[in-house]
């Protein structure tokens, strides 16, 4: 009887994952049709058939251009960016034993923002800006980790990492302000400001590998370690006594999550709140077991950012930076989470 009850719990979780998966697929298709240039489901079918089987679709060339060269890479990028932010948020939250932690906790976002600002200032071109951004994201987290290990309390590594992360992020934020202050107010300053707002407008096929490859390099190890990540949410001594090599496990997770966060920021700018809020929603639906949670986070994060991006690019004549929208949606939702935690305690 116990066996069946346990199985039924996992069946309901796989049912939930199936629903989430169908929603994700649905949102991808929906996003194909939406936009300034609307393409009907029938046109999408004809265009794909033309491309795959060489059967003439009989549509204007512009439809094919919009669909294959602009919309398809944009949809894939939006989904991947959302998935990666939410995945790294989930694993950071478990690793730092704190459900209120977001992927920028170790300074990756601020570092990447600073890198991009330098790149824009130096006219480094889009690839150059991404390279600067990605490198400084990694440098910021490395700084946090090394300083945290050297000066922090060895018995409470998570706290010292979080605190050093705060300091490193503040430092990079200050340097971003410094660059903005020095930048040419007519050309460079607007470019930096817009970049920092976060947008997927510059994603193309060229930028796709820049996020797809880190997604695979970072995501695959996390997928295989997903049950072990649970163990890090115990206190360090409990985890050690159970037989977990916490230092190695934590290091692998931080490397994977940082790789994903930095690459996302380098392509799309600062899109905040996704990595904080989506893991929460996923946890409400499937529970805290990372074995199921990580997959739910990936699918929900992708779906969420894709839908928000649809709004960003089709609601008004001029595209709204997506970072603004995620913050507008995220801030009240965060208040709701605080309220929910309070009512749960009482």
């Amino acid at each position, binding site marked *: 009887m116990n066996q069946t009850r346990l199985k039924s719990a996992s069946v309901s979780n796989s049912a939930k994952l199936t629903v989430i998966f169908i929603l994700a697929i649905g949102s991808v298709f929906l996003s194909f049709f939406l936009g300034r240039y609307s393409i009907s489901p029938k046109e999408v079918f004809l265009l794909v058939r033309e491309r795959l089987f060489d059967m003439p679709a009989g549509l204007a060339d512009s439809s094919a251009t919009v669909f294959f060269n602009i919309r398809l890479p944009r949809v894939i990028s939006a989904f991947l960016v959302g998935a990666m932010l939410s995945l790294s948020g989930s694993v950071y939250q478990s690793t730092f034993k704190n459900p209120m932690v977001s992927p920028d906790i170790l300074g990756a976002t601020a570092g990447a923002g600073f890198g991009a600002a330098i790149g824009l200032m130096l006219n480094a071109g889009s690839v150059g800006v991404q390279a600067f951004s990605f490198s400084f994201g990694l440098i910021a987290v490395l700084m946090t980790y090394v300083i945290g290990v050297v000066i922090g309390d060895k018995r409470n590594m998570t706290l010292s990492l979080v605190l050093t992360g705060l300091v490193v992020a503040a430092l990079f934020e200050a340097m971003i302000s410094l660059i903005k202050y020095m930048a040419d107010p007519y050309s460079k300053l607007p470019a930096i400001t817009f970049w920092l707002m976060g947008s997927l407008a510059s994603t193309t096929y060229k930028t796709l590998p820049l996020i797809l490859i880190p997604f695979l390099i970072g995501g695959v190890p996390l997928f295989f370690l997903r*049950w*072990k990540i649970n163990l890090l949410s115990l206190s360090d001594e409990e985890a050690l006594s*159970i*037989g977990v*090599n916490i230092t190695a496990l934590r290091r692998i997770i931080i490397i994977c999550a940082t790789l994903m966060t930095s690459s996302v920021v380098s392509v799309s700018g600062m899109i905040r709140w996704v990595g904080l809020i989506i893991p929460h929603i996923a*946890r409400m639906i499937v*529970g805290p077991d990372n074995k199921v949670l990580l997959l739910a986070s990936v699918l929900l994060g992708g779906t969420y950012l894709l839908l928000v991006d649809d709004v960003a690019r089709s609601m008004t004549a001029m595209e709204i930076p997506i970072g603004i929208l995620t913050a507008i949606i995220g801030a009240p939702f965060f208040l709701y989470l605080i309220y929910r935690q309070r009512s749960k305690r009482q």
Partner: protein
Amino acid sequence: MSFKFDHLSCGYHGKAVIEDICFELNAGEVVCILGPNGIGKTTFFKTAQGFLPPIVGKVCINGIDIARMARKDIAKQIAYVPQTKGQPFDYTVFDMILMGRASFVGNFSAPSDKDRDICIRIMEDMGMTHLQNKLFTEISGGEQQLVLIGRALVQQPKFLMMDEPTSNLDFSNQVVLLKKVNALAKMGIGILMITHSPDHALICADRVALFSKDKRVLIGSPKEVISAETLLTAYGVHVRLVSLKDDAYEINTCVPII
């Protein structure tokens, strides 16, 4: 099977708080650790599990220095039952217990059906099957303490280290826990338990280690170690030891004089 402390001195930054601990915990034996707050009982526990390097001496399991053992292998010999405290995430009781199988799970995999079966069996043995789908954060302190013992037992350890397991429990749960300690010892598990109650040591200990202010540890049978003089030296409290004897029981208890 032995868990041996060989002239062990424990402390932080090269400064010993407790010195020259020398004893061996055998299979099926209960050793209670008594001593005032801040005397180094927890420091000793940390050193005994290898979280803290010894200042002098060593800790050995079956003759092997734990400093040279992998965490995984230590976990298969010694399990630790911490005091209950908050959990940041709402894991179910079953998920919490399953975590105890970590040392048996491969580096990049998840627990197998065999691991789950062992957890189910131990939950049945402990009579807490009804808790399995409840959230760990929502059950009582007494139930949480039992779950943590269950999690330690699925490690299938030879030795169990318990840090004040009765401290958050009401009177009846303290009795449940002490019974459990005796039952586990009968099954052959060696138990090292920190307690604040000399009475608990008198009830279930085979031997008592009293940590006192001169950094020394007094080890022996409960009757030898727990006396009015030793407790006065250790705690600075006057106590009277009372022995009640009838046909069925001999009860020893220790009452402070205030």
